[in-house]
């Protein structure tokens, strides 16, 4: 029997209720399914989530500029998705293991990636920066959906080790169309693996609205695979945190996989290569601006007297410092030597590649001689 948290809340429309704890207007509302998961949270915790989101937004804008200035090859903004990313990621234990996609700046930040890691992924010098085992987070995945299977496999490994960590797969609404993501649900359900699927439905897959991918709410797909799911307001950091705690408690206690759809919005372009004015209306963006994840938590905290200008200024200053740190880390990174294209192809000696490497070294040496 599939247990679907709140899925039947709105059977009349079939769209499934979107669980919210703090509305777009900054009001705290009750949700019987989620409330208990955040009962222990203090205003300070919420302020820290605000801080996280603000810092991530600042890194994001810095990354964007660095790309525009030719310092990064590409940038995939997380603007607008801070609540979905931080809310879910901050509910994790450090020994859980996360499989993010390219857009999860906020998740990777929450996992402990350094300032340098956060931007230099896009520098073009290295395909990955941090050591996955140091922050228990895989390299951001570019092949849409591929990481969901890795998460399930990792979770199967956790089961085999008899431990209680959880693997988490992050992906987008577009990714739900990929075979891999559906197979991931099949495997996860078949083995009852401790994995949480976090789908950030940001309404767009490059130029395609979510309706191209899904004729029914995304959260509604998981129960058909035998996976309980929840549809949560992805711009409500508290609801995301609560939903993730619910999901983790299920998965951690041996009840198998869980699926979260965080309904949010990609406020920026798909990447710095994209021009969204070609395919979407400014009016839509305006609407989602009124649902901004940072604004609403600020409004809520102010309304309960837990947020003042001094705090805002402190966080802003911290953000600027982090922005500067990120920029410096980007500009100071050393170039790799041409011969390094051969590094790390294999873990063990490989006769053919060693030969090629030696030949290329000889070729490069010729230039050095010429230069002398």
């Amino acid at each position, binding site marked *: 029997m599939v247990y679907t948290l709140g899925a039947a809340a709105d059977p009349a429309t079939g769209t499934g209720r979107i669980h919210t704890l703090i509305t777009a207007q900054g009001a705290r509302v009750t949700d019987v399914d989620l409330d208990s998961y955040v009962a222990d949270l203090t205003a300070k915790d919420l302020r820290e989530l605000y801080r996280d989101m603000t810092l991530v937004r600042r890194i994001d804008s810095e990354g964007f500029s660095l790309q525009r200035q030719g310092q990064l*090859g*590409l940038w995939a903004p997380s603007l607008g998705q801070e609540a979905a990313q931080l809310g879910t990621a901050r509910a994790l234990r450090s020994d859980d293991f996360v499989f993010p996609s*390219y857009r999860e700046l906020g998740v990777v930040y929450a996992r402990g990636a350094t300032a340098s890691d956060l931007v230099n992924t*896009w*520098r*073009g*010098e*290295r*395909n990955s920066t941090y050591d996955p085992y140091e922050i228990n987070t895989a390299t951001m995945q*570019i*092949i*849409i959906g591929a990481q969901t299977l890795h998460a399930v496999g990792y979770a199967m490994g956790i089961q085999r080790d008899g431990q209680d960590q959880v693997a988490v797969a992050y992906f987008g609404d*577009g*990714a739900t*169309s*990929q*075979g*891999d993501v559906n197979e991931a649900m099949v495997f996860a359900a078949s083995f009852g693996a401790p994995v949480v699927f976090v789908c950030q439905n940001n309404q767009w*897959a*490059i*130029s*395609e609205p979510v309706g*191209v*991918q899904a004729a029914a709410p995304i959260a509604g797909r998981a129960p058909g695979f035998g996976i309980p799911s929840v549809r949560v307001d992805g711009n409500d950091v508290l609801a995301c945190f609560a939903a993730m705690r619910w999901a983790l408690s299920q998965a951690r206690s041996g009840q198998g996989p869980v699926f979260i759809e965080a309904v949010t919005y990609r406020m920026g372009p798909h990447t710095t*290569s*994209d021009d969204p004015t*070609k*395919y979407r209306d400014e009016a839509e963006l305006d609407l989602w601006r009124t649902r901004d994840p940072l604004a609403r938590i600020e409004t809520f905290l102010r309304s309960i007297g837990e947020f003042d200008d001094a705090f805002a200024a402190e966080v802003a200053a911290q953000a600027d410092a982090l922005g500067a740190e990120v920029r410096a880390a980007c500009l100071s990174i050393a*170039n*790799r030597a*041409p*011969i*390094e*294209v*051969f590094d790390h*192809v294999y873990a063990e000696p490989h006769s*053919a*590649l060693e*030969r*090629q490497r*030696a*030949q*290329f070294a*000889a*070729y490069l*040496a*010729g*230039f050095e001689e010429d230069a002398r």
Partner: protein
Amino acid sequence: MTAMTMGKSLNAALHTAMRRDERVLVMGEDVGRLGGVFRITEGLLDEFGAKRVIDTPLAEAGIMGTAVGLAMRGFRPVVEIQFDGFMYPAFDQLVCQVAKLHYRTLGRVKMPLTIRVPWAGGVGAAEHHSESPEAYFVHTAGLRVVAVSDPQDAYVMLQQAIASDDPVVFLEPKRLYHTKGEVDLDANLADAAPMGLARVARPGTDVTLVTYGGQVRTALDAAVAAEDEGVSIEVIDLRSISPIDYDTVDASVRRTGRLVVTHEAGREAGVGAEIVASVTERDFEYLESAPVRVTGHDVPYPPSKLEHSHIPDLDRILDGVDRALGRPNSLTGVAL
């Protein structure tokens, strides 16, 4: 004749082909409203509507597999795979269905698919966006594979591919999308050279330099540079890499006695291996030196800042030419 980029000439070819035959459809990720991430399908949705220009869900197997069904229904789908590195989820449908259905059905079911692929590197892209997977397709019986290198060829060959009753993997070098050339938009397909024929891109006498796609430009640059050193390179643009037009290659190699092949893809079991092997079999007695391959390294496509150490550039090609000519080169005294 009109001066335009290859991107524009491909776009023009799609317009022309869709006007000519209403069974031609365009489908893929972001090909409709956006006009494709490289704008190759720009304007098609407006002119032909959503029935013929289809923004598909994000799933390459789904795109390829539904295109098979559309072809069975008598359509001629032009599929766009957004980047070379995203061909692989569609590989099963490509290899087991697209390539084999005509054979399986004793010729009763045709597969007139054109599979357009923005292809290969040199544009500073992220991982998986600069792959050269063409050897996989060349090794797959049942497919035809072509690679374009200039706006005019692109204009004509895309139409030829669409008109072909066989499935054609149509490779578009990303780094040449913005290269300009003269295009005859009224070119009569019937008069054009068949897409299966190679082209001598530059005649020469000392060594035959065979290539295709994005490397054609680099090869031509190398030929110009070599001329200054008194070496005459004949550059052959294969255009079709499955089948390969060996008559044209033979004619050249039999004159020059020396062969250099260059491509971006890795060397092991690449298209260059095929060319060297076939030329050696066919022209052994004409060869004055061992054929030379100048290719990408056998590594995953490197991060973009290192890609120029991977894609063979003019210097590496000339180094290979020196080797073919028996002149001092980087491998003099180095074990092969």
